[in-house]
């Protein structure tokens, strides 16, 4: 019996040892301080640009950005993922961490986005507007992601009752499907359409059918880098940050 106990103790010590060495793994890149930003996947290009600017101003800081669906990121934070800043493409996902008391300050709106229809460059199904998106096989985001909820609202307003052939788990998955030519059309944010350039043919959705999505940013409570988190938020809200966002097609908050 004592032997079992001893083995169990050793095992417990070893597990603790393993988990602590796992925690250190993230600290690559020398002695740099790591600022972890969780951001909606529609911000991939703009935040990549802001990351470079921030690291130029803070040579001792390594900005690590995790891009995913806003709701996934929010759930990860409430489950204890160590993030310093959360940036969501809707209000509801931000509310998840507010409800859990995981935000350091009131989340601030800093930009907005609208949706567009994208088709492969040659537009094989001859789609001309969101109202006839069902002329071909189309894809939208899954309703569990913010972009899916918005797409569903727009389709309803446009009177489209046909179902998509597939639901992308996040907006970049929808864009990728259209870029590969596997679907005739997809609904993505106008910034994704613009970012994809020649890879897709973009069709505007008129204002009366479109939905404006507000983007929110907040520092995460118990962040080890609260000052840096605040500076990141200032950068996003600064004139320089706003001009990067504006160039990519984002609207004012």
């Amino acid at each position: 019996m004592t032997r079992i106990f001893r083995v169990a103790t050793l095992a417990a010590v070893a597990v603790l040892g393993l988990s602590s060495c796992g925690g250190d793994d993230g600290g690559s890149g020398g002695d740099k301080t790591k600022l972890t930003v969780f951001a909606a996947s529609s911000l991939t290009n703009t935040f990549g640009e802001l990351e470079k600017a921030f690291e130029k101003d803070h040579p001792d800081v390594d900005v690590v950005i995790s891009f995913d669906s806003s709701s996934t990121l929010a759930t990860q934070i409430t489950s204890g993922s160590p993030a310093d800043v959360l940036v969501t493409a809707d209000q509801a996902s931000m509310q998840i961490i507010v409800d859990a008391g995981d935000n350091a300050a009131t989340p601030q709106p800093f930009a907005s986005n609208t949706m567009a229809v994208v088709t492969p460059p040659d537009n094989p199904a001859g789609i001309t507007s969101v109202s006839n998106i069902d002329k071909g096989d189309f894809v939208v985001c899954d309703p569990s992601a913010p972009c899916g909820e918005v797409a569903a609202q727009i389709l309803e307003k446009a009177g489209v009752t046909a179902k998509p052939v597939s639901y992308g788990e996040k907006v970049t998955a929808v864009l990728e499907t259209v870029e590969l030519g596997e679907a005739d059309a997809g609904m993505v944010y106008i910034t994704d359409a613009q970012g994809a350039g020649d890879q897709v043919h973009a069709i505007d959705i008129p204002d009366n059918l479109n939905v404006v999505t507000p983007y929110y940013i907040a520092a995460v409570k118990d962040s080890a880098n609260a000052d840096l988190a605040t500076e990141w938020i200032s950068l996003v809200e600064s004139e320089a940050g706003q001009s990067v966002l504006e160039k990519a097609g984002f609207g004012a908050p």
Partner: protein
Amino acid sequence: MTSGGEASRGAPSQGRPPLALTVPAAVAVAFLALPVIGVLVKAPWSSLGDVLSSPDARTSLRLSLETTSITTVCCIVLGVPLAWLLARTSFRGRGVVRALVTLPLVMPPVVGGVALLLAFGRNGVVGKYLDSWFGITLPFTTPAVIVAQTFVALPFMVISVEGAFRASDVRYDAAAATLGASRWTTFRRVTMPLALPGIVSGAILSWARALGEFGATITFAGNFPGTTRTMPTQVYLALQSDPDAAIALSLALIVVSVAVLIALRERWLSGVAA
């Protein structure tokens, strides 16, 4: 394979097992058990029934069970002959074929999904002709789920069965041949029955891999309820909006896989051993 066999294997006592082996082994057990315990502890037991009886959950569970069954059959039909070829013949390029077999094991499933799109997608190198000649488009269909699952599960079948073919004595095959059996008859009546345990375990491994398959499926087959949304996708999506539901679904997936593995073990492995 029976408990008696295990007892006799453990019987010749050579002293206490060394700590250098028992401690890492205990860590391994804890490491494997803790995530399952996590699911059990955090499972929303009170709402479990509601989540699991929801139409979404039942639809995706049924789709998962149907597609993985067909995938397992595909793995047997394609994998056993390939394993035989690798084990019993020599041909040019065998090394390349063996490397190809292991490729899906090391390839991230999402990359596998993209690769499948580039091959069998609407604009893929093969898919283009499937579309223009036969009007068949795979992506976003249930057959695409099976294709994705077979792609990732086939290596388990081939490797397991090839090992079984190699382990069984070639002299039985030779004896059958001297008695006038053709190579096909020898395969059917001698080689395959001898390798049956390997085929069964290969089938179980392939099935388990297919059941858990997510990355290649969502990339190549997509995600639509009833057609392509399998259990792992359902879990992933539930995590975006309703983490409790995701835990409940994970629990269901664990229970189903354990139940099937136990059932198969009793039904098949004991029969094979006896």
